[in-house]
């Protein structure tokens, strides 16, 4: 399963949830749309495995952080579109600040100030 993904970065546990919530910040999207948005948004570095994406979507839906609705796409196709709930927006804000703290801390360790 891992064979084709050697040169891509594996997502950290929990990061996918943050990415999904972030992607949905600008409006409802369906599963394929979310995966494309993450892919293009990351400059093709992050490719979301569908085997992770759909479980994550259904898990977030169960946690009531996002809600799903069947709508018609621009190509006149029935699609299941997800959008953030109020709880999801709060969660997104919280996770974003967590992420910032984490990256700052990581950066501090990985790039020690000159002279140290």
């Amino acid at each position: 399963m891992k064979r084709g993904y050697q040169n891509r970065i594996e997502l950290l546990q929990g990061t996918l949830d943050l990415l999904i919530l972030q992607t949905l910040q600008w409006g409802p999207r369906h599963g394929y749309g979310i995966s494309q948005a993450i892919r293009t948004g990351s400059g093709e570095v992050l490719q979301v495995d569908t085997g992770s994406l759909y479980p994550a979507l259904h898990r977030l839906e169960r946690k009531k952080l996002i809600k799903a609705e069947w709508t018609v796409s621009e190509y006149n196709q029935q699609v299941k579109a997800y959008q953030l709930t109020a709880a999801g927006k709060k969660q997104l804000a919280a996770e974003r600040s967590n992420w910032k703290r984490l990256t700052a801390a990581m950066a501090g360790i990985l790039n020690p100030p000159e002279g140290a």
Partner: protein
Amino acid sequence: MKFWRQHKDEELDAEIRSHLDEAMRDRIERGESPDEARVNALREFGNVGLVKEVTREMWGWATLKQMVQDLRFGLRMLWKNPGFSLVAILTLAFGIGTNTAIFSVVNGVLLKPLPYPDAERLVRFEGINPDRGISNGGYHSMPDYHDWQSQTDAFESITPIVQQNTVLTGDETEAENIPFAKVTPSFFQTMGVYPFMGRALLKEDEVADDVVAVLSYGLWQRRFGANPNILGSRITLGGTPCIVVGVMPAGFDYPAKAQIWTLLYPNPKERRDNRYVRIVIARLKPTATIAEAQSQIDTISARLQQQFPETNYGWSARLTSLQDWTTRDVRTSLLLLLGAVGFVLLIACANVANLLLARASARRREIAVRTALGAGRGRIIRQLLTESLLLAALGGAVGLALSFLLIKLLIAISPADVPRLDQVGLDARVLAFTVGVVGLVGLFFGLAPALHAAKADLNDVLKEGGRSGSDGPKRNRVHAILVVSEIALSLLLLIGAGLLIKSFMLLRDVNPGFDPKNVLTMRVALPGRRYPNPQQAATFFRELTQRVSALPGVEAAGAVLSLPLGGSGETAGRSFIPEGRPLTPEEALQTDYFVVTPDYFKTMRIPVKTGRSFTDRDTGDTPKVVIINDSIARRIFAGEDPIGKRITVWRDEQFPREIVGVVSDVKITRLDKKADYQIYVPYAQDAGWGGMSLAVRTKGEPEALTSQVRGAIFSIDKNQPAYDIKTMDDVFSASVANTRLVMLLFGVFSIFALLLASIGIYGVIAYSVAQRTHEIGIRLALGAQTRDVLRMIVTQGMMIALIGAGLGLAGAFAATRVMRRLLYGVSATDPLIFIGVSLLLTVVALLACYIPARRATKVDPMIALRYE
């Protein structure tokens, strides 16, 4: 749920389809051909089935579905190995069944609360004399009771009760003997139970003209046809007419299955040392503890001892919760048996674990293939655990059915004096216990093999090709540890059984002081109303014993206040004073007082050591005489001839009695208790006792004479029933029945334990022989003698057996102490039993090793080598 689920499935399909459609459209827009686009979109998406599967897991059903899968697979595996499954299920069924059965007895007898409101607040008083190491079995004098009642504040109420039997006569119905109780009005308040119809007994009834009575529900139903107008009607109780004023609710029969409650009239002349017949129970205040109440009672007892040294020297009272008191005789035995079956279950589990381990190696390839196909470790463990839990559940189901039969059997063979047997059965708590045991058992014997299997390195297994390779030493060590513990546990049980058997045999050989063979006994209670004059009663019993002695097949007949070994009747505990030499308080031991008819000693074959027995010439008008037992002669009249000396007996202390004879000590309450002082007085000189036990020594079978003896009673008084008809042999066996039952059950359990342990050791050796076929073949081919091979295999088995036996012995040294209360005449570490039982176990283990070892020597080297 199913429809909803189908809907969700369809929705997921649609979602994935739309994903693929969108991906395809993007690709076509980027210039791929529709066919290319479809293939690439699918490739990019990955395994559709897997995505669906992992997504579904998010819905929360997946675990359930997997469980069903595992269960199905587990059932299939069991079905495919019927031999293994049958052995495992039956082993477990026996373990779980016996545990459920014994636990249901423990539950019914010990755990279920007594059927009274807030029953945990009920306590019973036990009179004790710690200096002299005696307990009077819980009887008290009224003056002591009054002091407890008036000088304590820990009790909500406290009440004295007299248990008796009496004759209920009716106009048309046959006279019948029933247990009844004399109680004070506070009885109902203390028990917290009141009549469901009519009223309870009141203080005013003490001075009323009519005697009033409260009936039990059962008696009202049975004898009075549930007559709704029973209140106010008259019944005749022991010759006394009473008015029924109430009926107690169904099931209430305290104390001692009482059917009628009447008033215990106050008697201001009661003596303080009259510790006799009256039991005392109390209800603690909700805020008070037993310890607080006990310290108040201790204070009062100390003061009474100072104030009344003659009657109260050394006496105090111990409080016990009514529940503990009720079950005090059986508690240790029951807990011990529960421990024993617990051990049997552990051994059964170890055996099944061994079976599973052996089978796990056969399944290593299957498990490796599953791992290779993507099953995670957790998944494999879960599946193997599901299988063992399934096995445990099946064993539990069969065990439950078995326990149903075992409970019936246990109740049937239990001695009648085991309290609360009617409470024993399968109830929610027992079922919960069984389910708990099944769960624990399934985990216990399933976890080791499961962890083991999941740890196996899959490359190694698969590389082995078709050959099922031999196991490492590690697995053999697990086998060996399991068997060692089996041996240790079964040795522990066997030693326990051995100790119990030895004490039972010693107990049975105890000389009770009389000859119980061929003696028929029955109780005759003359009602005071019809025999108001003691001389009438004396005439009745003189005539009765004469008529019965004259019956063909009768050797002798006598009557006594109460039979030995707790046969029946009331024991009267008193004291006596030798003339001219008052007893020191230390000498004043508990004295059992008997009135007897002249032929009583002859009937019971109680040897008269010196002096004479009573005769018909000892009457109310002749000089007062008494016979003492050996203990009094030895301790009070040491070195002198007691014959002709005079003592004053409690009952008629205005005049002394002359000692005319000394008889042997008789075991009054239990075989394992030393005899106290015993005093015998001729019935003719103390005929105030209506209730006597008739004893008849017969030439042949005692039971055969029952109707003739009853006929003799009816011929004197047609309204006089006899009850409690039994032989002295019955009384004798009943007195050892508890010990016997515990011994029997313990013996059965330990034999099963031995059997299981030998199967265990056999299995391990057989398994190891099968594994080493190749090695043994080589050894034989290289010239080893069969004797060497035999020795090698047997040594391996005996190592396990001896380590197990050593641990078992060590455990037994530490553990048999808890049995001490059940043992008689044998120490808890009796060397003979310890050594003998260990030898027995070693021999059985040797046999269990020898059979597979023998098979090993039959290995044909050619076949063993070619087999590779």
